[in-house]
């Protein structure tokens, strides 16, 4: 199996203004199967996005090998194989996989590989659309070196506003 990805989508909870720009960008660029979900976090409704786990439970749970880690290390869903059984959605500990009730298929973040594969500093669309810079496409080791703590794929700590 390939190595995990180096760069992930990280959320700075102290900057997110809950505008939904990330979710809308994902919806409009992924054939109306958005992979950005939202979840209640205290007083806020924040986006939740695939963490690209090292030992991805969704990949292990998929009975038809539709959920795979590709050569670039991205955990992806092969739509033509997906039977919509929802095993991956139940296996994901972060609840980032929605089960599309109409299509009976799973929407899955592919890190906008069509843009980011080139490596030219291109970022996924949700990161580009975020108007406040709350989303970063970054190597979590570099982000940690900047004295920011990462918890389960989210940045926290050094919180100017001490809100959440």
């Amino acid at each position, binding site marked *: 199996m390939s190595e995990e990805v180096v760069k992930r989508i990280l959320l700075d909870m102290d*900057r997110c203004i809950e*505008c*939904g*720009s990330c979710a*809308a960008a994902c*919806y409009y*660029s992924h054939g109306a199967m*958005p992979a950005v979900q939202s979840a209640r976090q205290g007083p806020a409704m924040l986006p939740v996005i695939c963490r690209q786990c090292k030992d991805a439970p969704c990949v292990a749970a998929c009975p038809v090998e539709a959920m795979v880690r590709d050569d670039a290390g991205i955990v992806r869903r092969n739509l033509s194989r997906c039977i919509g059984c929802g095993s991956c959605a139940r296996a994901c500990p972060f609840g980032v996989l929605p089960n599309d009730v109409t299509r009976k298929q799973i929407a899955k973040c592919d890190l906008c590989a069509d843009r980011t594969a080139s490596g030219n500093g291109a970022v996924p669309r949700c990161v580009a659309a975020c108007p406040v810079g709350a989303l970063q496409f970054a190597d979590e080791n570099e982000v940690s070196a900047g004295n920011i703590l990462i918890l389960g794929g989210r940045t926290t700590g050094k919180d100017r506003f001490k809100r959440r």
Partner: protein
Amino acid sequence: MASNQNNPTCCTLCPAMCPMELVWKAPDRPVVEYPTEAGAGLCPRGSALGELLASPYRIRRPVDIEAAAELMTDGATVLIDGNLPLEEIAAAAGIVSAWGGVNLCCVVSPEDEQLLLGIEATGAVYLADDDLAGCDGFVVVGDVFAANPRCARNVMDALAKHRRAPLVVIDAGGSVTAKFATRRIICRPGDETDALVGDDVASAVEARKRLGVIISAEAGRGNIWRRIGYQAGELAKSHGGGVSAQTIGANALAAVRLNKHLGLLSLAKALKQDSGVLVPLGVDILGMMGWADMDVPVVAAALPNCTTESARVVLPVALSCEMSGTYLQAGTQTVKTSALLPPPAGVPTVSELLRALAESAGADVPPSGGGLPPTGRISIPVPDSAEVKVPDGKVLIAARQAARHGDGALTAYAEWQKQSSPLPEIRMSQADAADLGLRDLAQVEVETESYKTIARLRIVKYIRPGTLAISESYPEARRLMPYVIDADSDAIISNPTTVAVRAVEPVKAQ
């Protein structure tokens, strides 16, 4: 001094004017493509534009000019969207003056209009979004981060630069912006005016040398906005800063100034006129005002809306982002933009439609001149103080939101918006929710003396018990608190309204 900028294509739904580009996914499917680098930003309203331009709901019916002109023979008052390029507004004004017997009004959201008139009365500097990053403190009224998500980045960057910079948020509506405040003034609706000149604000901004005062004018606060604009301008001037008005549409200030410079009608006068018919071209006047009944026989619209439902003649018209032209930013800068796409075949722009109507009525209309109309500051008297009557019990006010635009007529057709927020959100405090036996995210029935509708409840922290705030970008929400024309001030206002909220499904004990 005016300076000019060129923005090849951008969203003009708010003053941020975010650059954006369309690509073709299929021959009939333009979609927004986001810049490959981080930091550009495009909110859900901008993201939806690609889909809306090619919406299957677009009105493309034959342009029946004769039938429309026939209904206008006894005179007419034409309403056009204030968020058109300057050239388009100037052309419309030229056509109407050659026509004779027809009046023109450039429509701006009533709260924005009052706010901008108040700021004009002070002579304060207007700040562009990028100027906000250079401020050393902020006073905010309303949900400015929802009104213009891009301005949040500049505010946050400024706060990061000046570690002691205050962000004072005055808010009655449980806003997202209030969560980020260093000092929060959660007031009753209408009390924003007192708060803005109160001791709390004065002490928080005492040492500031470049203060940014940012306002988002929301409905349900009576007639406060002109006074707020004036107070905001004076406060900014006294701290070496400026004002940023987060209006609906990028050209609201230009429209307010042009209404005066070109001698156009105010919206209040236009609605009170009884000479001839009212002809909205690209304005959902019934949806915006929250009115159910008004005789509007001729209307032009890009997409079906509350006004087209009852009109006898419905004409197609281009969206503002389908026209190239100039926008006024920060009071002095002109920004030229190109159309995102040309209008669909056979769909006229507002000025093309107006010209055809005038010529059909026999008017001799000269070709439109190329120059820009005057957009300099207008002279406005200092507004009186404002007092708002807040009824007893639970009251309803309106709130801005990031996902939908203005009165909601445009974004009502955007698929992501329909799926992610099919119902308006009504915010209330935990105490009110407990009092009413309601849980977070429940579907509720909201009733005022004007209307009844369904909404989604959201319990928020920063709202006073007794105040409930509903997203303003839904026609049904506007009908809960319809606008009235204030006979004294000639302003269009919406007051806080007594409201009842109840569950529409039995709530299980938690």
